[in-house]
């Protein structure tokens, strides 16, 4: 979706402000929010792309004015209610009013260490690669209403395939809960001027990780 989350190349947000000696969490609830997200992810109720799409669907004003972990917390509430796992009345009450639904699995403290490493997003290929390193490709001018990982600034632009990264879960499909739909993934490199015109630094190069359905031969 062409949402506020797709920020690459936007103007007006000001300077980057690094915080010296930044703590891991700025408040206790941030850590709890991260942990709730991880623990619920472990139960298999949603994919990482469904959770990203959950953030993207926050109203733009909320997205821009909420801290990172506040977005996570609100997204959690929204997804849980949307999926019928929690009632809005229960969030209001601060207590369960009905028993929970059975889930595939539940994260125990003893299993936490093994959940710290990421799983693999690679999947068996359904077809041979369409492109190879060195190929010139044009990104499609796609504007789906739903989740996509092709940023706006890199649509309808010509670049070069630099590497094949394997066949991966396709976020555009997985975000809708419609399965893995594996697709080939490529690193595609663009000249800065192809993306930003004459105002770009002449030697700038920017790459995106592009799934095969985003690309066509140039």
């Amino acid at each position, binding site marked *: 979706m062409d949402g506020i989350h797709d920020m*690459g*190349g*936007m*103007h007006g947000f000001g300077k*980057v*402000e*690094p915080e010296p000696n*930044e703590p*891991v*969490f*700025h*408040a206790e*609830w941030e850590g*709890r*929010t*991260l*942990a*709730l997200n*991880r*623990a*619920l992810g472990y139960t298999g109720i949603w994919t990482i792309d469904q959770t990203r799409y959950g953030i993207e669907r926050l*109203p733009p004003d909320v997205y*821009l004015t*909420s*801290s*990172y972990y*506040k977005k996570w*917390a609100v997204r959690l*509430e929204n997804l849980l209610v949307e999926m019928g*796992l*929690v009632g809005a009345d*229960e*969030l209001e009450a*601060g*207590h369960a009013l*009905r028993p*929970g639904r059975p889930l595939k699995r*539940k*994260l125990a403290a003893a299993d936490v*260490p*093994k959940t*710290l*490493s*990421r*799983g*693999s997003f690679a999947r068996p290929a359904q077809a041979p690669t369409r492109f190879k390193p060195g190929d010139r490709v044009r990104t499609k001018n796609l504007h789906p209403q739903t989740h996509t*990982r*092709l940023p706006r600034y*890199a649509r309808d632009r010509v670049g070069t395939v630099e590497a094949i*990264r*394997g066949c*991966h879960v396709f976020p555009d499909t997985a975000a809708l809960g419609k399965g893995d739909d594996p697709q080939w*993934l490529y690193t595609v490199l663009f000249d*800065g001027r192809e993306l930003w015109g004459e105002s770009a*630094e002449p030697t*700038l190069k*920017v*790459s*995106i*990780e592009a799934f095969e359905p985003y690309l066509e031969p140039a």
Partner: protein
Amino acid sequence: MVQDHDNHHDDHHEHGSELSEMQLRVRALETVLAEKGYVDPAALDAIIEAYETKVGPHNGARVVAKAWSDPAFKKALVENASKAVGAFGLMSRVGDHLIAVENTPKLHNMIVCTLCSCYPWEVLGLPPVWYKSAPYRSRAVNDPRGVLADFGVTLPAGTDIRVWDSTAETRFIVLPMRPAGTEGWSEEKLAALVTRDCMIGTGLPKNPKDVS
């Protein structure tokens, strides 16, 4: 359901009342989820402890220091970072899709996620607030030299910039250049030069003179 009063990027700037609003809200959410049997609060404690103590940029720093010290490891790292870092026995298995990108005198690499906050957690820990902020995500891809200036970093004019937008599940770590004047240094001493930001590409390693 959504109520917002805080318009700061980082919550430590929030007023106390707003902080407690989120504290209460998340506590209520956790209570509901625990009562419904979806989460175990002890597991949540363990997750938080791991991210506060075990996972962090000190892991990435050890990888970089080893790459600076051991040419065979550096070659393996650049060829397949997941495999090389996994074999290093740093911690539990790293993800399958880690990619190390090497800085040279002619090329400086910078990592961003313009769409959300993708970041190599296993080697760098949780991302800092600025990495997830609108200024960084918007400007890294079209004004990386300006972003570097925000960090007080100026690259030589002859050093080109390459930005990697993390738009899939591949994750990137920058392998910075080993500072001059560190000949004969141990891996441990070298690791002390490696900052989180130099592995994102928004910084350079520390000056060896500043590390005694």
